[in-house]
């Protein structure tokens, strides 16, 4: 997966699904079961966000070497 695709799926899709989509939808009077469409949409964005991140993980990040760094918590102390 290219970095462009990674950021598109991981960041652009979840952000565009919320901003400006949700405020725009909240102006519609359509309300299935009486619940504003904006709220239904927002609830749907929850699994969508997880799915987008999972795609980034399984298609790209898990194939990268993990980082394991020993921290020196006393370094730079006065």
């Amino acid at each position, binding site marked *: 997966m290219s970095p462009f695709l990674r950021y598109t799926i991981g960041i652009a899709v979840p952000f565009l699904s919320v901003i400006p989509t949700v*405020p725009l939808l909240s102006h519609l009077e359509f309300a299935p079961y009486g619940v504003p469409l904006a709220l239904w949409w927002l609830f749907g964005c929850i699994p969508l966000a997880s799915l987008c991140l999972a795609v980034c993980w399984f298609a790209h990040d898990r194939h990268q070497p993990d*980082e394991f760094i020993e921290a020196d918590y006393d370094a730079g*102390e006065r």
Partner: protein
Amino acid sequence: MTAVFLGLIAFSLVLAVLSKRGHAQQKAEDFFVASGQFRTILFFFLAVGETYSITTILGYPGGIYAKGTGTAIWFLGYILLAFVVGYFLNPLIWRAGRIHGAVTLPDLFRRHYESRALELAVTVASLIFLVPLGTSQFLGLETVLKQLDWAVSPWMLTSLAGVLAFIYIAISGIRASAYVAVLKDLLLIASVLLAGLAALAHWGVAHAGAAFAHHIATPTREDDVFAITTILLQSVGFCIVPQTCAYIFTARSAHTVRRAQITMPLYMVMFPFLTLVAYFALEHGLAVKAPNEVFLSVAHLLLPAPVVGLVMAGTVLSALVILTGICLAIGPLVSRNLVPGLTGDQQRRWSQVVMALYLLLSVIGAAKSSQLLTTINNLFYFGIVQSLPGVLGILFLRRMRPLAIIAGLVAGDAVAIWIFELKIPVAGINAGFIGLLVNFAIVFAALYLSPGRERTPIIARRPRAAPDFPQR
């Protein structure tokens, strides 16, 4: 109800004691950030535990009850996108923490920019804006504990809760916080699902639909602007609040952080049920003294007493876990960053004194305040997020000047407070967002006009994996 409540609280203390096993002699870094040893599952529970506070369970339905659907939109939107931003940003913050041996965010600033003044500026700003957050937790605790109908003053009850939070911390610092967070997260999700399902069962889907329709109010342009700017500000700001940094630094590796971030949005499944509870209260004309009481009033009305005890324990623990997180962020801010030169043992001892004082001040603050929990949440973020340009400088940029970051931080906080306190009309834009724009303008003008000396950003310092570390 009381027996279940007290039993679960007692069990949380047992978990806190168990967390100390194998870590009897804790060094300061183990006390504050578990020496960066947490694996994915414990890291996930700690992260979720530090995310969903009593503000979520009481403030979210309270906000809808008092202000309508607009609250739900920005509240859900920012938490959801915070996990998305965190997937990409938090592993870098983790790497910065490891490279610089940081326990707090100001540690990063001091070591990356080599500036004591910048460390102090970030520390003081963090401390100022963390104070109301503790107050908000005690406001929520007061709402819950007075429903026990014990013949004790609310002040005494919240003080006892403060003592309990301190006991967790004193037992084993962030390890106790993480163990208690596991219980809290399970109880919280169970509580919300039970209350929401009970509301639905009592109500009937068709009736529920009619109720929702009554409470739809078309948002104004200002509502939209507030929702968008608040979501943008707080979704990024969430990653750099002091207690978030504290739990990021507990992770064992960068992949640990990423794996946990993927599943974090799924915990938000509780929000549809919390929304249902809020609308149930609205439709049934439930009489509550304050909007923050909506969730518990519905639970009392619809659930059997032992289950209400479970709900109350989950709610109380959600505040206590957050309080331990805030305390574990504030302690080292004072003992490492505000007062330099203390040894590890001294840092730990002085932190405990600071934490006790903070809890006491927050209890007093709660006794004198009655603001809506979601308002306090906004206030916290618009101040704390002003460290963002400096953090981005650590992670991505080479020539930022510490003095410019300080100027931006002070100006951003000043502008945000000025707009908020004087209620200056800004077309609905979040005051913190305007402060952040001013902040960025100052920092980037300085970067363009008078760049500082070159420092290698964290993004360019990708370390090699240790040879004995499992590769994936």
